[in-house]
């Protein structure tokens, strides 16, 4: 396989008691791209993410990351390979400070995470890098706040900072702009674009303004299966996609003219 492909799934399938949530999906994510996964509710997007990070086990099919078969690996090992996800609902450590949130992610590489006899001051040397990451997502002013106090959008930003701290090769973002006000959406959109340099991003997103402006490739899922794939312009013109997702309304309206 080409080194251009960072992540590939082959015939990836997940059944829940007879119900096929993800059906023989062949997904190829190109290194360095922003790849969006869209589709109607219940299409299997989150399930797909869960499969990729092994939060659930595939029924069949395989997942290849950088050419390695990771289908059987544990969630934490997958994370260690450089696939880091964010969650559809906010995933921060609410009662840690903003700085500590990022530091937890940085800390793993230090190799002292089982050292229960060491002072936590030994982690202070990570502060600088953590602060840097927080600045990058415009949270510089909130470093010492307890995370619960942040607004929703800022929590999502923090989540991205934490994810970045893992220096992921591949970032999985599940509806990063969900539940946000307009300006937050805009901030996150810019942020994603910014951090996409030197890494690959796979995201689930319903907000077409986000998808259309930053995604390089789009895969449309419908009832667990791939419906279409390609750049935005192409996909959005696909009648099947319009029918299943973008809304036949547009179709109808155009027809009516």
């Amino acid at each position, binding site marked *: 396989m080409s080194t251009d492909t960072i992540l590939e799934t082959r015939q990836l399938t997940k059944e829940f008691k007879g119900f096929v949530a993800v059906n023989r999906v062949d997904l190829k994510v190109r290194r360095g791209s922003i790849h969006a996964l869209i589709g109607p509710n219940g299409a299997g997007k989150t399930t797909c993410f869960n499969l990729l990070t092994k939060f659930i086990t595939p029924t069949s099919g395989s997942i290849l990351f950088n050419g390695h078969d990771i289908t059987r690996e544990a969630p934490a090992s997958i994370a260690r390979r450089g696939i880091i996800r964010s969650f559809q609902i906010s*995933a921060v*450590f609410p*009662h840690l400070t903003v700085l500590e949130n990022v530091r937890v992610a940085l800390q793993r590489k230090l190799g002292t*995470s*089982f050292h229960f*006899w060491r002072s936590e001051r030994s982690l202070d040397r990570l502060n600088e890098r953590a602060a840097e990451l927080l600045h990058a997502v415009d949270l510089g002013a*909130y470093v010492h706040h307890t995370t619960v106090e942040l607004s929703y959008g800022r929590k999502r930003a923090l989540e991205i900072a934490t994810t970045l701290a893992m220096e992921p090769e591949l970032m999985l973002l599940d509806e990063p702009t969900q539940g946000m006000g307009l300006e937050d959406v805009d901030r996150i959109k810019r942020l994603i674009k910014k951090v996409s340099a030197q890494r690959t991003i796979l995201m689930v997103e319903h907000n077409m303004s986000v998808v259309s402006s930053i995604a390089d490739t789009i895969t449309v899922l419908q009832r667990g299966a791939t419906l279409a794939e390609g750049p935005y312009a192409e996909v959005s013109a696909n009648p099947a996609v319009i029918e299943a997702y973008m809304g036949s309304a547009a179709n109808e309206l155009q027809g009516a003219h």
Partner: protein
Amino acid sequence: MNVTTASKPAAPAAAAPAADDRQQVLRSARVAWTVGLAILVAAPFIGLYPVFMMKALCFAIFACAFNLLLGFTGLLSFGHAAFMGAAAYATGWLVRSAGWSPEFGLLAGVAVGGGIGLLVGLIAIRREGIYFAMITLAMAQMVYFVCLQAPFTGGEDGLQGVPRGRLFGLVPLDDDLSMYFVVLAIFVLVFLAIMRIVHSPYGQVLKAIRENEPRAVSLGYHVNRYKLLAFVLSTAIAGLAGSLKTLVLGFATLSDVHWSLSGEVVLMTLLGGMGTFAGPVIGAFTIIGLQNFLADRVGSWVTVIIGGIFVVCVLAFRRGIVGELLAWRQRRLKGSTTPGGH
């Protein structure tokens, strides 16, 4: 009184204060610590019954160990008495029948507590929440029956007449006063050790796991290993508490492994304030003191009262004594400075 972290099930006890608040908190914490320690040192000289104080300190160690698990890791073990009790028996037998010296007896207790903890933990850690609680309870019951039936435990009579011996072959412990200071010293060491564990790189990860486990997994932490280590650390310290108690009181009996003790330690922690450092200590002293005080006065009503405290704590008072105090002070501090964010 001290630095806290919030507990998973309970509402947050405190948020991180701004820098100058933190100074103030540290200062008042230091004052509180000094006063607390002074009281403990003075206790036998101001008429507090040393045997009672020692017993309470042993339970305080036990509760601190338990809190390391519940308060700082978010795991409710409902079988912690098993580790304390098994260690109590081990130390009792080694010191009495095998002639070990007290310090090795204590070390053996730590090893037994931790060892059994490892075995139980390997099974229990596979499930979470109430399942974890029920599994630990059942595994502990197994330990109970082993202690009931094993040939060296003395069945219902327990192991009696365990001598205190001489510490390091030097300090004779038969005298209540010298024993008291040994117990106090061990208590202080354990307390500091727990503070260190909580404020270590490892403690940070634990905290993160407790706050949001799926997120911790996604950051690449094998959370079960961290939880298992916490479990083993906690059970090892619980073992130490049991061993020490055997030396203090001279016996190890089935009460030490009975599930009702597992329930009591939950109550101590809950009442004092889980996820705080001082909470379990205050909880342990309160409960042991209450039991002592009430036992002769109200008979079976002790159980009713203890049960009532449980109900009240769970319904209205989930932060516990220390947690409530901290929250109250937090509110006062908040009143004077503007909250950050937004």
